[in-house]
C-alpha cells in the first residue's frame, strides 16, 4: 500500500472548534473589507508533490487525496476529527440482514460541477465504472483501492482478479435510492466508501473527457484528459488549473449544496523538500504545510505560527523477520523487545504527545487490548534471554529507509540510531542497511526474505481493525517470515463476527495472541502535525486526512 505512509495523519479534533469559529467569524462582519481586499480569500498550502492523478479512482497517494477531497465527495464521509463514517452524499443507509445488500438514501438537489444531476444513476455509473476497469486500469498503481477493498474486477486477464470481486450489481429504483448488491459480505464497505478513491464523479464529464482512456500499453500509463484537466465532482471547490511541478489551483464552487466558505481560491504549491516547506512558511510564501518535522515545532510556535496536530491513527513498529534463523527464536525476539527503551525513544526522537505503543493498532481502534504482554525495558533481562538462547554474540541486519518522512515515522534515521544504540548496549552487533524508501526499501522488506529487523508502520485508511492487523498478519508474508494458519484463521473469523461487540472481543483476543507470538515490537503512535500562519483559523484536522478547506477562515 503505497498509501500506507504517504498519507496519514491524525489529529486532534479541531473540527468542532472550527465550525464554531466559522460561524462567529461571519457574524463578526468585515465581509465588505474581505471582498474588496480580495487577497485574503486565497489559501496557499504546500504540497510535498504533484497529485498522481486528479481522478481519485486512479489515486492512492496522500497528495492526490488532498486535492481530491476538495473537488469530490463520496457517499460516505467521516465525523469531523474522527475516522468514523458519517453521511455525506448519502443521507442514510441500511444493510440487509445477510450483509449482502446496502440501500443508500441520497441527498437531493446536488449537482456536479458541470451541471449534471447527482442521482442514483450517477452512483451506479461510478460503481459499474470501477468494477469494469480493464487492461492497464487494473494495475495496482491506478485502481489500487477498488482492488484491495472489492478484491477483483468484473473480468480480468489476471486469474486472481477475474470475477473475484465482492461487488455484484447496482440498482436505482428511484432517483434518490441506490442499492448495492454484494456476492459475499464486505463488513468494511461503509468505512471504505469514505476513501476519496470512491468519490462520486460526473458521468457526463467522465465520458466527455475519456476518463478511462489511459494509454501507454507496454509502457507506463499515461492518464487521459479527465484525470489531468477535467476532474468533475460535487465538492465545494472546482478545478481551475494544474502546472505540474509547480501548483494546482482550485476555485470555490458557488453553487455548492453546503456551506460556501471564506476561502475562494486554493493553491497547492508543490515544494518537495521538507526544509523548503518550513522556510516557505517562515518567509510568508505559503499559509500552511503538512508533516512538520518534530524538531521544528517549538521554533515555529515561538515565531508565532500555529501547530495543529492530527489524532494519531497509526502505528510505528520494528519488525523481526522470522525467516532469519536467529530471529525465529522467540527468546531472541523477546530479548530485542526488552532491550528497547521505548519511553526514551519517544522522548528523544518523536513529536510531543506521541504515545508508546503496546498493540499493533492505535487505542482508538476497536479491538485494542490493554492487557497484552508489554515487554518492558529491561537490559539485564534482555541479556539473560540472549544467553539462554545461546546467542550472546549476535549480529543482526537492521534495515531502515532514507530520505523519507512518514506521518508515523517522521525521522527514520533517528529512530534507527536510538534503537541501534539500545541493542548494542545488550551486546547485539547491529549491521546497518540503509536503503532509499522507494522502491528499494519496500521491495526488499515485502518482496524478499532477505532482511533482518526493520522499521515500518501504517496509517489507517478508515476506521476498521481489519485495515490494520490483517494488512500485517492476514497471511504468510515476506515481511514477517512466519506461517501461522491459526492466527490467519482467527483474523478472518474476527472480521465476519455478526455484531460489533463480538467483533471487538475477537480482535482483542487476536491482539493478545499477536503480542505473545511477538512478530515485531510496536513502538509508538506518533502525532502528525501541520503548521499554519497565525491568521488561519479552523483547519479541520482529521486522523484520516478528511480535511476540506471550506470551513477554514482567514483573519485579518
Amino acid at each position: 500500500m503505497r498509501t500506507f505512509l504517504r498519507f496519514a495523519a491524525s489529529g486532534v479534533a479541531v473540527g468542532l472548534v472550527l465550525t464554531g469559529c466559522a460561524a462567529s467569524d461571519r457574524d463578526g462582519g468585515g465581509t465588505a473589507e474581505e471582498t474588496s481586499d480580495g487577497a485574503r480569500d486565497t489559501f496557499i498550502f504546500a504540497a510535498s508533490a504533484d497529485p498522481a492523478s486528479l481522478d481519485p479512482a486512479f489515486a492512492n497517494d496522500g497528495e492526490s487525496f488532498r486535492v481530491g477531497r476538495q473537488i469530490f465527495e463520496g457517499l460516505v464521509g467521516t465525523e469531523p476529527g474522527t475516522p468514523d463514517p458519517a453521511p455525506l452524499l448519502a443521507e442514510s443507509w441500511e444493510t440487509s440482514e445477510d450483509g449482502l445488500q446496502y440501500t443508500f438514501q441520497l441527498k437531493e438537489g446536488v449537482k456536479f460541477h458541470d451541471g449534471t444531476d447527482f442521482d442514483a444513476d450517477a452512483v451506479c455509473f461510478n460503481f459499474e465504472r470501477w468494477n469494469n476497469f480493464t487492461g492497464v486500469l487494473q494495475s495496482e498503481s491506478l485502481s489500487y483501492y477498488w482492488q484491495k477493498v472489492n478484491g477483483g474486477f468484473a473480468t480480468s486477464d489476471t486469474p486472481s482478479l477475474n470475477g473475484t470481486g465482492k461487488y455484484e450489481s447496482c440498482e436505482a429504483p428511484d432517483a434518490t435510492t441506490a442499492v448495492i448488491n454484494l456476492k459475499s459480505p464486505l463488513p468494511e464497505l461503509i468505512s471504505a466508501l469514505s476513501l476519496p478513491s470512491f468519490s462520486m464523479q460526473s458521468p457526463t464529464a467522465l465520458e466527455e473527457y475519456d476518463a478511462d482512456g489511459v494509454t501507454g500499453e507496454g509502457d507506463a500509463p499515461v492518464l487521459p484528459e479527465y484525470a489531468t484537466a477535467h476532474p468533475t465532482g460535487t465538492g465545494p471547490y472546482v478545478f481551475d488549473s494544474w502546472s505540474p511541478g509547480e501548483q494546482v489551483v482550485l476555485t470555490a464552487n458557488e453553487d455548492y449544496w453546503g456551506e460556501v466558505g471564506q476561502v475562494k481560491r486554493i493553491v497547492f504549491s508543490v515544494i518537495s523538500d521538507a526544509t523548503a516547506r518550513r522556510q516557505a512558511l517562515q518567509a510568508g510564501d505559503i499559509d500552511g504545510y503538512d508533516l512538520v518535522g518534530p524538531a521544528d515545532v517549538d521554533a515555529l510556535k515561538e515565531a508565532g505560527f500555529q501547530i495543529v496536530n492530527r489524532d494519531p491513527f497509526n502505528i510505528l513498529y520494528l519488525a523481526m523477520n522470522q525467516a532469519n534463523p536467529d530471529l525465529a527464536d522467540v527468546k531472541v525476539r523477546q530479548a530485542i523487545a526488552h532491550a528497547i527503551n521505548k519511553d526514551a525513544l519517544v522522548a528523544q526522537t518523536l513529536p510531543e504527545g506521541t504515545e508508546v505503543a503496546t498493540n499493533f493498532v492505535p487505542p482508538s481502534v476497536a479491538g485494542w487490548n490493554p492487557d497484552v504482554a508489554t515487554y518492558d525495558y529491561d537490559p539485564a533481562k534482555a541479556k539473560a534471554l540472549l544467553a539462554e538462547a545461546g546467542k550472546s554474540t549476535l549480529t543482526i541486519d537492521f534495515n531502515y529507509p532514507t530520505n523519507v518522512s512518514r506521518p508515523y515515522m517522521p525521522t527514520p534515521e533517528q529512530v534507527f540510531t536510538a534503537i541501534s544504540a539500545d541493542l548494542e548496549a545488550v551486546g547485539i552487533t547491529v549491521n546497518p542497511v540503509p536503503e532509499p524508501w522507494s522502491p528499494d526499501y519496500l521491495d526488499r522488506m515485502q518482496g524478499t526474505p532477505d532482511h533482518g529487523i526493520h522499521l515500518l508502520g501504517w496509517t489507517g485508511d478508515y476506521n476498521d481493525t481489519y485495515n490494520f492487523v490483517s494488512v500485517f498478519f492476514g497471511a504468510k508474508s515476506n515481511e514477517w517470515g512466519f506461517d501461522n494458519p491459526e492466527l490467519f484463521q482467527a483474523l478472518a473469523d474476527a472480521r465476519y463476527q455478526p455484531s460489533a461487540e463480538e467483533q471487538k472481543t475477537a480482535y482483542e483476543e487476536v491482539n493478545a495472541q499477536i503480542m505473545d507470538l511477538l512478530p515485531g515490537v510496536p513502538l509508538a503512535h506518533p502525532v502528525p502535525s501541520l503548521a499554519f500562519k497565525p491568521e488561519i483559523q479552523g483547519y479541520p484536522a482529521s486522523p484520516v486526512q478528511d480535511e476540506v478547506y471550506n470551513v477554514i477562515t482567514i483573519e485579518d
Partner: protein
Amino acid sequence: MIRLVLQRIALLVPTLLGLSVLLFLWVRALPGGPATALLGERATPEAVERINRLYGFDQPLLQQYLKYVGQLATGNFGTSTRTNRPVLEEFLNRFPATVELTVLALVIAIGIGIPLGYVAARRQGRLTDHATVVASLIGVTIPVFFLAFLLKWLFAVQLGWFPSAGRQDPSMVATHPTGFYVLDGLLTREWDASWDAIVHLVLPAIALGSIPLAIIARITRASVIEVQNADYVRTARAKGLRRTRLRSRVILRNAMLPVSTTIGLQVGLLLSGAVLTETVFAYPGIGSFLAEAIFNLDYAVLQGFVLIIAVVYALANLAVDVSYGLIDPRMRTR
C-alpha cells in the same frame, strides 16, 4: 564555418548512440530492475510479474534496446514512473524554468566576473587583486547547496527580502503563453508577473552563478595579465596606439578568447549545479525534477534527462565554438 558546424553535428550522432547504449544497459543493471519502481508498499510477486510483462522487461535485451532506440527516434523517452507523464513532456514543461535560471546565473557570472577579473589584472599585486583572487577561490570551494542554503536562510527566511521558494507567488494570477515567466509578463503586459518572476530568480541565480563567476573572474584575470605582457601589445603600445583603443581593441579582445571557451564549459557546471540549487529553492526546473527522480529512483526520467541534457550540453558547446570562431581572427580566415 558551416562545414565545421555540420561536422560537429555529425560527430554528435555516434556519441549519442554510444550514450543510448550505456543508458539502456545502465537501467537494466540496476538492482531490482525497473519494474520495482512502479510498485508500492505491500506489492505481491504476481504484481511484479504483471508489470514486467506489461512493460516488456522480460524480453531479450537486444529486442528491448532496438525498441528503446526506435522510441527515442520518435521522441518517446518513456514515461516517468513517479508522475506517469511522458519524460519529454516533463522535460519541456520544466526546461524554460531552468533556461531562465541558468541564463540569469550566467549573466551574473559574466557581468560581474569579467569586469572583476579585468580590474584585478589591471591592479595586479595590489589589494583589489588579492581580494578578488581570494574571493574567487572561496567561491569555488563552498559547496553550492551550502551557499544556496545560506543565501536562502539569510535573505529569504531571516530578512524576508526575497521569496524562499518557487518561480512565482502562488497567489498571483498570470498567463503563460511561452513558459518563460519573465518573457510571458512582458508579452502579456503583466509587468508585475515579470517582476515577480525576476524576484524569484535572484537568489537561486546568485547561488548557481557563484562558481562560474569565480572561474570567469580568474580566467579573465590570468588572460588579461598574459595579453598585457604579450609582445604584440608592447609593440602596439610602442607604436603609440591610444590607451583606450589599445585596451578595448587589443587587450580585451585577445583576452576574451580563453574566457569565451571557459563560458561554454560552464554550461555543464550550471546544469550540475541546477540539480542542487533548484532543490534548495524548490524551483520547478529540470534540476529539482532530476533530484526528485534520484530520491525516488525514477530511472525513466534519469535515463531520458541525461540523454537530453547531453544533447543540450553538446549544442551549447557547439554554439560556443562557433562564437569563438567569430571572435578569433585566425579562425575566421578558414
